[in-house]
């Protein structure tokens, strides 16, 4: 028996996947606009974020209805809780893409623009993390999601490397201050995207396996009391 409820869950998932693909595309274009100094593309990213915001509200409303009217349980409940958080995470990633695009707009105007090799590296990894987290969500694949968690440290290290290089850069040449600040801003936004992709992956594991992996919760957990059986 397929219930109407199941169709509504499917429809929520479809909208989230749609939102995921818009965010993925926006992030890719924001990065490209910053690396290639493409002001038109950067403006397009800022404009397209409105679509992400609209989808976030649409998903929020669908989730409220499902919780209020269907009282979901077990994996349905975990799916809806995961969807609630992923919805929020995607919207935030959308905002970070906008931040990167705004940096791109500033970088486009600078004559003393320099590059830092770590940034394209970070961009490639964060894009892959987001893609894998979303694939894990679509395919209900906790293994794919788990792969995302292992990459976050790499992003954090690269972000620190960028900060060091920026300091060196502006120390040696004060005319690069503005560019350095923007590059550091791009790096910090990419680092946050890495964190949020990690959150999405953690939610996929929670939904599919009923395990809480965030904050290394499983390692810290006091063993639960045995069931009565």
């Amino acid at each position, binding site marked *: *028996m397929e219930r109407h409820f199941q169709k509504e869950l499917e429809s929520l998932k479809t909208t989230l996947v749609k939102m995921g693909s818009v965010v993925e595309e926006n992030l890719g274009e924001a990065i490209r606009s910053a690396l290639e100094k493409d002001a038109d593309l950067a403006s397009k990213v800022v404009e397209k974020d409105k679509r992400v915001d609209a989808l976030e509200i649409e998903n929020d409303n669908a989730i409220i209805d499902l919780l209020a009217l269907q009282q*979901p*349980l077990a*994996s349905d409940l975990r799916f809806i809780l995961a969807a609630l958080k992923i919805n929020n995470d995607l919207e935030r990633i959308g905002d970070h893409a906008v931040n990167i695009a705004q940096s791109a707009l500033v970088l486009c105007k600078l004559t003393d623009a320099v590059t830092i090799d770590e940034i394209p590296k970070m961009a490639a990894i964060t894009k892959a993390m987001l893609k894998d987290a979303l694939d894990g969500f679509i395919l209900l694949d906790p293994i794919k999601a788990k792969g995302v968690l292992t990459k976050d440290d790499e992003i954090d290290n690269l972000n620190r490397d960028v900060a060091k290089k920026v300091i060196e850069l502006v120390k040696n040449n004060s005319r690069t201050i503005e560019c350095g600040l923007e590059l550091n801003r791009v790096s910090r936004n990419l680092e946050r995207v890495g964190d949020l992709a990690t959150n999405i992956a953690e939610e996929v594991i929670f939904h599919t396996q009923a395990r809480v992996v965030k904050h290394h919760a499983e390692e810290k957990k006091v063993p639960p009391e045995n069931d*009565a*059986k």
Partner: protein
Amino acid sequence: MDKHVIETRQLSLFYGAFQALTNIDLNIGERRITALIGPSGCGKSTLVRVFNRMNDLIEGVSVTGSVVVQGENIYKPDTDLITLRRKVGMVFQRPNPFPLSVYKNITFGLEIHRKGSNVEFPNIVEQSLRNVLLWDDLKDRLEDSAMRLTLEQQQRLCIARVLAMKPQIILMDEPCSALDPIATLKIEELMQQLKKEYTIVIVTHNMQQAARASDFTAFLYLGQVIEYGETKRIFAAPTEKQTEDYITGRFG
């Protein structure tokens, strides 16, 4: 871990040749509310009726394995059923007060069992009605016929009637299915009060009720316990696929 007041081991029950329960191993914790859930015909009502041997009233029933209630195997041949049923009281689906006064409904069992003297009756009546939160409503209507109460009041009275016998365990077989949602919530609240002193086993079709009101849940299917554990785990992350399918409504 909780102290167990009911323990079944390899319990099987047959209605003639039909096997209604198969190898059930279940421990019921003291002063806990344990819900039995499962689709119609899964054996949950049969199981709850094992605990005070109500199934004995049906012809052709046979039981194998053991059921230990507070340390005693209740299927031993010399079990005193009257004592057992006083210790393990029962509340049914439809409120079934006797067509007597409110007062007599509560003292009826006491008289039959010769528990307490007539002098103590008024106290027992008051205490029992207080425990089910009926005293304030009915203290001036004790001589009224119980049949004139609302359905919810009747069900509370039936619970009070059980409490008057000082049971240790209360079995409830779909106790709210004849009640409206508000009355249902009130009975569920009452169960939370009662579990401070009593062990409650409730059979329910209403999954939300099991989720709201119980501490432990057993899911039965085709006469077997498929999964048993803390209610919050069963409803958030069941480990058996059949449990998952049943509670998410994907069954069948």
